[in-house]
Every structure is written in C-alpha cells, then in structure tokens.
C-alpha cells in the first residue's frame, strides 16, 4: 500500500488492541466534552447540539414558508378570489421562494451535515466547532428578523430573484428590497462559514483508513456541496453588494441609461442560482444513497459511478446558469451552449437513479417509512428531471418559461430531490438524536398524504402552464379557463399540508432529544454514525477498512466502545480529534479543539444586529454593532492556536502524534486557503462584471487619467509582500526578540494601507464619478472590496502583534502567523491586479 504522508499504514494493523484500558478514561472524556447547562447551554458548540438546533430552525422555516404557500394556494383556488390583496400576495410569494431557498434548503443541508458528518467520519467534532456555532446563531437571529419583516408589511416583494430595475430604488423605494439584500447577506456569510467547516471536516478529520474510496457517499456529497457553495455563493454575494450599492449610493451597475445593464444581475444571480439547485439536491442524493444501501441490505452498486456523478453534477451545473435567460434575447449560439450543458447535467442524475435501482435489484429490499419516502423521492425527482430536459430545449422554453409549467417543474425537482429525501432522513436518522424512533404506522400515513398531495398539487399545474398562466400572478380572470386545474392544485396543497401536520404529531409524540442513550440503529445501517456514542462522540476512533465497517466487522461496536481503537482517552486533557490526510486518511496530528464559549454567540448577535439595523436605516447603532463584532471574534480566536504542554501524545497502540503542527497540512491553513478562494471568486465575478459591462456599452467607457499613480500603488503592495516574506524569514531565524517578525507584519500592514490610500485618493481626484457611469461605479466597487480586505489585514496585524507581545507566537513557525501571512499576501496581490485592471483594461480596448 502506498503512503501519502510518510505514515506507515502497517501501524494501523495494531488495532483493535487487546489490552484493557485503564479505568476513569470515559469519565474524563465526559468531563471534558460536557455541555454547559442552564442558560449557558446557549454557549454550547458540540456538533450534536448545534446540529440539532440548526436542523430544527431550518425545519421551522420550512413550516413557515409552507404556511405562506397554503395561503397563496387558497387565493389561487378560484379566479378573482379576494383572500390576499395584491401587495401582500407579492410579498408572500417573494418570501416563500426566498425562505425555501435561503432559509430552509441550504441551511437544512448544512445542518444535517453538521449533525451527521462527525459521526459518519468518526471524528470527535468538526474542526471549527465555534465557527459552526457562529454560523448557526447568525442564521437563527438573522432568519427570524428577516421573517418578521412580513408582519410589518416590509417584506420584500420583488420575487426571490429580485431582478433590477424592478428592485432598484426608483421602482422599489421602500426598505422592503433592502431587507432581502441585507437579510440574504448574512445568510450567505453563515452558509460560507458552514461550507468551510464541512470542507475541512471531510478532507481532514476522517477516521484513519477511510480513504476517498471508502468515504460514505453522504460525505462525498457534502464535500462537493461545500465546494460548490465556495464557488457559487460569491456570485450572489457580489450581486447583492452591487445592488445595495446602487440603491444606497446611486452607483449605476444595472441602470442601462448610465452604462449598466439589468442582465448583469441575471448573470450573477443565476451563476449562483442554478448551482444552488444542485447544492440542495446533492446532499439529499447523498442521503438517498446511504439509505438505499441500508434498505437493500447490500453495498451500493456503482459507488465510483455515483461519486463521479456527484462531481460531474457539480462541474456541469456551473454551465447551465443562462438557461434561466433563454427569453432575454441572448445570441442563439450562446443560449444553445447552455441548452447543451443542460442536457449534459441530466446524465449524472440518470447514473444515480440507475445506481439506486441496481442496488435494489442486488439486495433484499425492505419496506418501511424511509423506503417509502425514498421511492417517492425517486419517482418525483425523475418526473421533475424529465420536465427539466423539456425546458432545456430552447424553443420549448420560449413557450413555458415563467409560466406555471416552470412552477410545477421546480417543485417536482425540489420536493422530489430534497424534501422527500429529507423526510426519509428524518425517519432514518431520528434514532441518532432521539431516545425514541418515530412511528412507522404514522409515518406511512405521513408519506401517502404528502406523496398524493404533492402530485395532486403539481401534476395539473403543468397543464395550467400550458394553458398560458404566468407565474407570480396574484389572481386570474374567470374567462381564462384556469380555474379547474388551480382548484385541484389547491386541494393537493392542503393534502400535502395535512401530511406535514401529521408528521408534527409524530414528532411531538416520539421525538425526545438526547445525545447519549439514543434509540440507535433502528434500520441496521453499516456506516460509522451508528457506532455507540456519548457526548464525546465515539469512545475511540476506529480504523476503517471498508465502506460499511459495521457490516463487515461484527465486533467493531464493542471494540470501539471498549477503547480498543485510536484516541480512547484525552491525552492532552483538552477536547481533541485526529487530523488525517485528505486522500488516504493517514493520521497526521492531534487537533486541540476549543470548547464552549459565549463569544461566537455574541459575535453572531452583533453581526445579525449590524445587518438588521442597517436595513432599518439605524446607521449609528449598526456601525456600533458591526464594530463590536470584531472584539468578539478576536476574543473567540484568542484561545485557539495554543500549543499544549504535551508535545506528542500516544493515541493508542504506541502510535504518537504531534499536538501542534504548522504549515500546509494544518486545518487552519486549509480553512484560510478556502476563505481566500471565496474572496477571489468575489473578485473574479467583479472582473467578469467589468468586462461584461464594457462589452455592452464600450462607447461609454473612457481611459482613466491617473496612470502615474500606478507606480506608488504597486510599489506599496510590492513592499508589503517583501516585508511579509522578511517577517516569515525572521520568525524562523531570530530566537529572542519578540518584536522583529511582528514588526515586519505591522510595517507590511502600513504599506498595504498606504498603497490602498493612494489608489483611492487617485480615483477620487480623477474625473470619474461613480454616480455617473458604470465604469466608475465598478472601479469603486473594486476599491470597496480592497478597502475591506486592507481593513481586515490591519486588524489581523494588530492581533498578531498583541499575541506576539504575549509570547504566543511559536517558533520557527506559527499557525496564526501563517494565516495572517497568507491573507496579507493575497490582499497585496488582489490590490495590484485591481490597480492595473482599473487603469489599463479600458484603455487597452479600442473605444
């Protein structure tokens, strides 16, 4: 067997060990991993708590958004019905779509990931538990205040994709649209925080021996899911930023009269928006794969095909965004490329469907509630996929685009591809977090009501669309013949609602939250989440030798519980888990994990406060709240990245792992790189916007008059980079002086601030006015991003200096130092590209 890190894989053959473990280890683990009680429970960070809070909140938003749908269906039951006035209806459908996509679907998948992944990978927790807590609380507070806007008539009413110019200040003067933009703003932050957590978690905290080829499919799905968030969300982050700039500062990104273009928003939105559908579907498909295997009582057939299908879906989904724009009059050749890609993306879906069918054919399928839900999901999703193929053909889409046919299609895909799998998962994994399983008898009813309701609602809706009923209409005229199908749809919607109500009854009767004595492996799954667990997850971390360890090794549960595998105790006396290598999961080091803390909670509250206060235009409190976030985050980080007294620890069978590691193998390094990819994607999207708008109105662009300022700006950024390398060099070299490496970092920060200051000043002096042209507006959008990066690096430099002064910077290398180094180096790079691009690109093209 090959090795990836130099770790000898033979060492793992020492497990399971045979000698008795000393007494008191379990008590010690319980003490270390104990969750605070009473009000302090709010400061908990363990994934089994945060995961369930998160799942519960996402489900709450599902119920709320579903309730809105029922009211809307009542309004549409009859022509000229007067249940909802026009304005309220417009708010309802906007909120329904926005909440289902942003507050339910993506967070729900992240929540299930946070809940299940550490158990599936047999890690003690995800690598950044406090980040999970922060992501959850920001989402919880932000989501609830977003929903509350409905009660004040301030809810957004521009549709969930918020096309400008309808959402510009001219046509949406109220703060309703700002609620959407800022509300979505921190949900994006929360989603990205979660994605970083999941990416690093799946790549770095798998149980030893769990190579990429042995990972549970759900982990694969979540890995790709998180990767897609990293690539896709920046587009919508930039979109919301630009639209908010346009609304607040009158910078014309989307105003055709001043060189902007409404279609730019559509490109940015759908570059996020279409992958979003797969971001929701892939984790659900991962859950389905896991369950299919259990219910067929056999290994998944075509595991490598499914993995490839997941990867292919992720790639191709980035080539289909413009199929939402077939009717915008884009050139035929362009839209045909998107049509072809939309065809291609259905092949991986076909692979997964047939892999599930093949698995059923191989095994001995059993019928129970989760099986019903997953078969229902399969049928429904296939139907949605088929209408998806239909609308992928451009001429057909010209007819049905924005009609109720699309409403039917997207609900088939999302309910079949996410909601039914989610309910299957609820029934299947309930035993992990509840001391009682859900009722099979009620579950069957829940399924049939939901399944029948879903199809009664949405099957006739295809016809409604073919009859010419557009979407997003609050009423229709009696002479339109749309009444019969609409009435049927409404009856179906209430049937579906009844099914969900019955599920709530089941939940109330049987769900009893627990982290210790849960109902367990009710359906007989073969993956690691069904190992016996306590507060600390598994007693010891098993060596993984196949894809279904519990099926292949009947003793594994007992061996794990008796501590015969890795890390049966807490050698450093802190919370800890094993960090492994990304390909072959070879043990690399012991990560010391932070415990409960109020600071992520406070940081989340202040972050949410910042956005909400900004929305209601309480600017001073907003700024205060925003500034208060910073010390909270720094305080939460302060306790991390500290070497412990024990340099290396025995993790069992005489294998010793270091407790402090620096450089590219660390989880901190990975997280920083991923964060920088997010920042870079936002930048890249801005560059795209730049060339896109230039291509639309080249005549409106002019060569800037501040070419000479390029010299000091580039000089400053160059100096910063030089100082950074010098600082790193000094850190490795000098032994005594506390200040010299930190001084270089501080100087580098000053150079960054100076370079940015000169850049900004030269633009303010120039003739370009950001209110008058899209070119200038985009230039200032570039500068705003750079300004934010420079401000963050300044704070980072001060933080580093402070830690250095307290002698917390280890030598020859240090993780905090590495993180700051990477971030600052990137900032210098992006600043240089910004300076060159904004000055030279328009001049390089013929006007």
């Amino acid at each position, binding site marked *: 067997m090959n090795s990836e890190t130099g770790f000898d894989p033979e060492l793992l053959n020492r497990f399971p060990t045979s000698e008795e473990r000393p007494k008191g280890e379990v008590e010690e683990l319980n003490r270390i991993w104990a969750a605070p009680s009473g009000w302090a429970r709010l400061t908990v960070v363990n994934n089994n708590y945060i995961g369930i809070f998160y799942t519960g909140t996402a489900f709450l938003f599902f119920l709320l958004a579903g309730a809105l749908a029922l009211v809307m269906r009542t309004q549409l039951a*009859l*022509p*000229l*019905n*007067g*249940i909802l006035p026009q304005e309220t209806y417009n708010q309802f459908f906007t909120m329904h779509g926005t909440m289902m996509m942003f507050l339910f679907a993506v967070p729900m998948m992240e929540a299930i990931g946070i809940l299940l992944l550490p158990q599936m990978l047999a890690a003690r927790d995800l690598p950044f538990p406090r980040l999970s807590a922060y992501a959850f609380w920001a989402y919880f507070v932000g989501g609830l205040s977003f929903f509350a806007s409905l009660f004040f008539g301030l809810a957004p009413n521009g549709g969930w994709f918020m096309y400008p110019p309808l959402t510009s200040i001219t046509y949406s003067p109220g703060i309703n649209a700002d609620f959407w933009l800022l509300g979505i703003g921190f949900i994006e932050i929360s989603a990205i925080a979660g994605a970083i957590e999941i990416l690093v978690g799946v790549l770095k905290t798998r149980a030893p021996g769990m190579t990429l080829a042995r990972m549970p499919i759900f982990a694969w799905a979540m890995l790709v899911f998180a990767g897609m968030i990293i690539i896709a969300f920046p587009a919508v982050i930039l979109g919301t930023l630009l639209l908010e700039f346009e609304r607040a500062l009158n910078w014309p990104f989307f105003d055709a009269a001043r060189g902007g273009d409404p279609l730019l928003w559509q490109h940015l939105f759908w570059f996020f928006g279409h992958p979003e559908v797969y971001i929701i579907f892939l984790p659900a498909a991962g859950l389905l794969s896991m369950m299919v295997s259990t219910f067929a009582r056999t290994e998944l057939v075509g595991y490598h095909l499914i993995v490839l299908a997941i990867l292919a879906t992720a790639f191709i989904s980035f080539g289909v965004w413009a199929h939402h724009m077939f009717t915008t009059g884009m050139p035929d050749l362009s839209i045909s490329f998107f049509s072809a890609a939309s065809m291609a993306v259905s092949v991986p879906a076909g692979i997964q469907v047939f892999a599930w069918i093949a698995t059923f054919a191989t095994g001995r399928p059993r019928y129970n509630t989760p099986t019903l839900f997953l078969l229902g999901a399969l049928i429904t999703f296939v139907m949605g996929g088929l209408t998806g193929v239909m609308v992928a053909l451009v001429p057909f889409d010209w007819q049905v685009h924005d009609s109720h046919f699309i409403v039917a299609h997207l609900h088939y895909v999302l309910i079949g591809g996410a909601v039914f799998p989610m309910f299957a998962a609820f029934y299947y994994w309930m035993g992990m977090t509840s001391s009682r399983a859900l009722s099979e008898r009620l579950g069957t009813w829940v399924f049939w009501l939901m399944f029948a309701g879903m199809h009664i609602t949405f099957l006739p809706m295809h016809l409604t669309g073919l009859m010419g009923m557009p979407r997003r209409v609050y*009423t229709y*005229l*009696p*002479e339109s013949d749309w009444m019969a199908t609409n009435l049927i749809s409404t009856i179906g919607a209430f049937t579906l609602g009844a099914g969900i109500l019955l599920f709530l009854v089941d939940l109330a009767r049987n769900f009893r939250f627990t982290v210790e004595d849960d109902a367990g492996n009710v359906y007989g799954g073969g993956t690691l989440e069904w190992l016996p667990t306590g507060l600390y997850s598994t007693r010891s971390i098993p060596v993984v030798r196949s894809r279904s360890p519990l099926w292949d090794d009947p003793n594994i549960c007992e061996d794990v519980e008796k501590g015969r595998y890795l890390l049966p105790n807490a050698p450093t006396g802190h919370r800890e888990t094993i960090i492994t290598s990304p390909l072959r999961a070879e043990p690399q080091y012991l990560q010391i994990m932070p415990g409960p803390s109020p600071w992520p909670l406070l940081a989340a509250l202040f972050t949410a406060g910042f956005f909400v206060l900004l929305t209601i235009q309480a600017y001073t409190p907003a700024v205060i709240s925003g500034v208060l976030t910073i010390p909270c985050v720094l305080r939460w980080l302060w306790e991390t990245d500290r070497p412990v007294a024990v340099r290396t620890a025995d993790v069992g069978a005489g294998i010793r792992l270091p407790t402090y590691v620096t450089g590219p193998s660390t989880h901190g390094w990975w997280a920083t790189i991923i964060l920088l990819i997010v920042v870079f994607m936002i930048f890249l999207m801005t560059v795209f916007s730049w060339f896109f708008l230039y291509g639309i109105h080249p005549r409106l662009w002019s060569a800037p008059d501040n070419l000479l300022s390029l010299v000091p700006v580039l000089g400053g950024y160059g100096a910063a980079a030089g100082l950074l390398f010098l600082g790193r060099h000094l850190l490795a070299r000098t032994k005594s002086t506390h200040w010299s490496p930190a001084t270089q970092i501080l100087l580098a920060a000053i150079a960054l601030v100076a370079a940015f200051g000169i850049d900004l000043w030269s633009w303010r002096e120039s003739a370009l006015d950001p209110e008058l042209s899209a070119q200038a507006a985009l230039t200032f959008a570039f500068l705003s991003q750079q300004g934010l990066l420079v401000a963050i690096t300044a704070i980072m430099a001060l933080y580093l200096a402070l830690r250095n002064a307290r002698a917390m910077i280890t030598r020859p290398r240090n993780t905090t130092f590495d993180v700051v180094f990477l971030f600052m180096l990137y900032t210098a790079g992006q600043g240089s590209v910004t300076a060159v691009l904004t000055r030279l690109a328009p001049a390089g093209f013929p006007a």
Partner: protein
Amino acid sequence: MPVADASRGKRAIERVGCASCHTIPGIGWPKGEAGPPLHGMAERALIAGRLANRPGILARFVRDAPALVPGTTMPAMPLSEEESRDVAAFLYESGK
C-alpha cells in the same frame, strides 16, 4: 321563459365588468368604488333610492338604468334581457 340563474348571472357580471364600479359580494375582484356597494340587495326597499326593489325592475335597471332613472350616472350595460334577469338573481342571492 327560462328561470333566472344566479350562476349565469355571475358570469355575466364578470363579463361586462359591473364590479369595476360596485363592490359586489361574491365577486373577489375588482372591488370598484365608483358606485355604491351592492351588499344586502335582498333586504333593500329601493333601487337607486327611488325604484321599488322588485326582481323585474332590478333586471331592467341593470340593463338600462338611464331609461328608468333619468340623469343617473349608471350607464346602460350591454346585457340581454335574459342575462339581466340572471344578474338580478345573482345580486339577490349573493347579497343576502
């Protein structure tokens, strides 16, 4: 003579757009505010303040108001005799 049919009356009301001036019970949209609302038609003593509220008169009134009440702002509506009886039937039924 066929019996007046309230449901046909409703369709006629929707077709000619009575609700663009009157809020009519049973008609969700529009809820016009140019003329008086037509709630409680069955209990009213008078039509337009001066005609006896009887089905035949109401039917004639909705069809050609200026002929019965010279100077009224309500115009003649494009309804057949049969339709006007249906409309009257609907107004009595829905406005109970």
